[in-house]
């Protein structure tokens, strides 16, 4: 099998789905880049290179460079989806949701319910998340917890290249609006990825590592932090089960609850938010439905309740690390 990075796996998924279905289009800022300039078209191929080369194969009618106009991009994607296309709208950074939130959570998310089940809105919003690139408060957030709380949206956050391809294909084929969160620091992360197309169903968590002492639920890049912590803990004789839910909406509650039933201890590692984030959500779930199996408090490992800082030592302290996870587990076991 071929080793591919997440960037390559996503490009694979986009290309294969665009070949399969002419109604699949891409629109966003610099998804090709270069229009109206004195240089070449496809100068960017997506701000982080994911859509590179697609305009060459599919043309400007299906790989659409837009102005910097997030509301129009999201709204156009929703309107196009409701009328027969399967648009993939690219939003450079999730932070920019601030300027187009209405089109996503009041429009796309609500259509089906508000219109009595008569519509389908098969759109995908691809966006980037995550701190660690020294890009400060307006280019580093995760925010998936906010979208997870909106009924009508599906939220997907792959942690590896295999999942990235399969989940993106599933997202494109799905008939509901899907927000696809790509962690900027994971784009070069590689693993075995089939060349063929495949779809991974939403709502099935991946058990990344089996264990029996502690359950760690982690999202996106935090899955790797959790795995690193699990390795350290294994050398201390502590067996950790790492669960990557892959999608927060729908959420595979069963796998989490079954794991906690086995281990009796839960740590949630989440980069999205200290308050009302996914850590709080999972903690709430287990506190309510898995209380009797808990042998200790639920530990939430999140960034502090601050914006993402710029200065490297501050940002490093902001992001949950394997050491903080290990310390959290020690605290729980004490």
């Amino acid at each position, binding site marked *: 099998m071929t080793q591919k990075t997440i960037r390559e796996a996503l490009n694979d998924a986009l290309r294969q789905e665009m070949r399969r279905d002419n109604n699949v289009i891409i629109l966003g800022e610099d998804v090709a880049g270069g229009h109206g300039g004195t240089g070449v078209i496809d100068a960017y191929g997506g701000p982080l290179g994911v859509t590179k080369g697609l305009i060459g194969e599919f043309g400007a009618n299906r790989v659409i460079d837009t102005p910097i106009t997030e*509301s129009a991009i*999201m709204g156009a994607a929703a309107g*196009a989806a409701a009328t027969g296309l399967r648009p993939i709208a690219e939003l450079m950074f999730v932070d920019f949701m601030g300027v187009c939130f209405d089109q996503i959570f009041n429009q796309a998310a609500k259509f089906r319910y508000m219109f009595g089940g008569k*519509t389908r809105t098969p759109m995908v919003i691809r966006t980037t998340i995550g701190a660690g690139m020294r890009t400060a408060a307006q280019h580093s957030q995760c925010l998936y917890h906010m979208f997870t709380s909106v009924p009508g949206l599906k939220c997907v956050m792959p942690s590896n290249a295999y999942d990235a391809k399969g989940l993106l294909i599933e997202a494109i084929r799905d008939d509901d609006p899907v927000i696809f969160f790509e962690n900027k620091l994971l784009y070069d992360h590689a693993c075995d990825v089939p060349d063929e197309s495949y779809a991974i169903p939403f709502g099935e968590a991946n058990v990344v590592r089996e264990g029996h002492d502690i359950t760690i639920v982690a999202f996106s890049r935090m899955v790797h932090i959790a795995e690193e912590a699990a390795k350290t803990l294994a050398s201390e004789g502590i067996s950790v089960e790492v669960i990557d839910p892959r999608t927060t909406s729908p959420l595979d509650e069963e796998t989490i609850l079954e794991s906690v039933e086995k281990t009796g201890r839960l740590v949630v590692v989440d980069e999205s938010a200290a308050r009302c984030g996914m850590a709080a959500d999972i903690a709430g779930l287990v506190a309510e439905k898995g209380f009797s199996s808990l042998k200790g408090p639920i530990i939430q490992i999140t960034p502090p309740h601050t914006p993402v800082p710029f200065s490297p030592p501050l940002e490093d302290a902001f992001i949950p690390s394997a050491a903080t996870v290990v310390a959290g587990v020690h605290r729980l076991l004490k």
Partner: protein
Amino acid sequence: MGSDKNKLLDAYRRMKSIREFEERIHVENTTGEIPGFVHLYAGQEAIATAVCKHLKDSDYIGSTHRGHGHSIAKGCDINGMMAEIYGKKNGLCAGKGGSMHIADFEKGMLGANAIVGGNPPLVIGAALTAKVQGTDGVAVSFSGDGASNQGTTFESMNMAVVLQLPVVFIFENNGYGEGTGCDYAVGAESIAQRAEGFGLPAVQVDGTDFFAVEAAAKEAINRARTGQGPSAIEAVAMRFYGHFEGDPQAYRSAEELTQLRETGDCLKIFRDKVEAGKHVTKADLDQIDQEVKSVIDSAVKAAREADFPTKDDLLTDVYVSY
């Protein structure tokens, strides 16, 4: 000439249906049987009717919170609309949308939209579908003078020009955005003039004159349909009622309202014009008045008698699959 007559009678029937629908809701709303907010379109009937006259079911429109008129003009079922407004299970949106979210995709009605400035981005999306799929479809956005100030509207006009989308932006200037006059809130000289600044052809027309709107809409829609890009039309026509039903309208003088009914009623203006012509008689129009009245009567009766959704309906249709 027979076809001209029929077209005129059709237009009148549509406009009258909207007027009767709105007048009746104005009355029924006081019974307390209609849940939530209703925003009435009375006074602006000529605009929706004259624009939608040029559209097919496969063309799309996006509407506003004041959307009953657009829905009727685009061909939505009046009984389904009324049931929806009453929150009934047999409503066009199964009772889950209400007055502000009436939609019927089969008729090309992309939904009334309760967010001011909410529909223009969606409508350019519908136009994008037509462009990508290579059909001759057209999408029309109805916005008020209030929405004309929204960033989403500006973004949509710009993107429509950049991508040369088959779309028409109709700005219905009814004098007020909620309780604030358009003269105060629109910084430009006119909405049309500002739209022109985005690089699309734009005209201002008298929205009480069905024929003026019809001519402007014909040109703009034809432009879109033949791949010549977007246009904008500002149609001026005051609304008869408040922003919402129950609005005391303290921001309007009594004289304005009285005068409006006398000189700014698009239905009267239409009647005067066609009755002066050869094809249509007063009797023809009076007969339509009677027919429309009975249609609305029975719609109200049916809506009142219809069943509400059940508790089970609460959880359905959030997603296609989950």
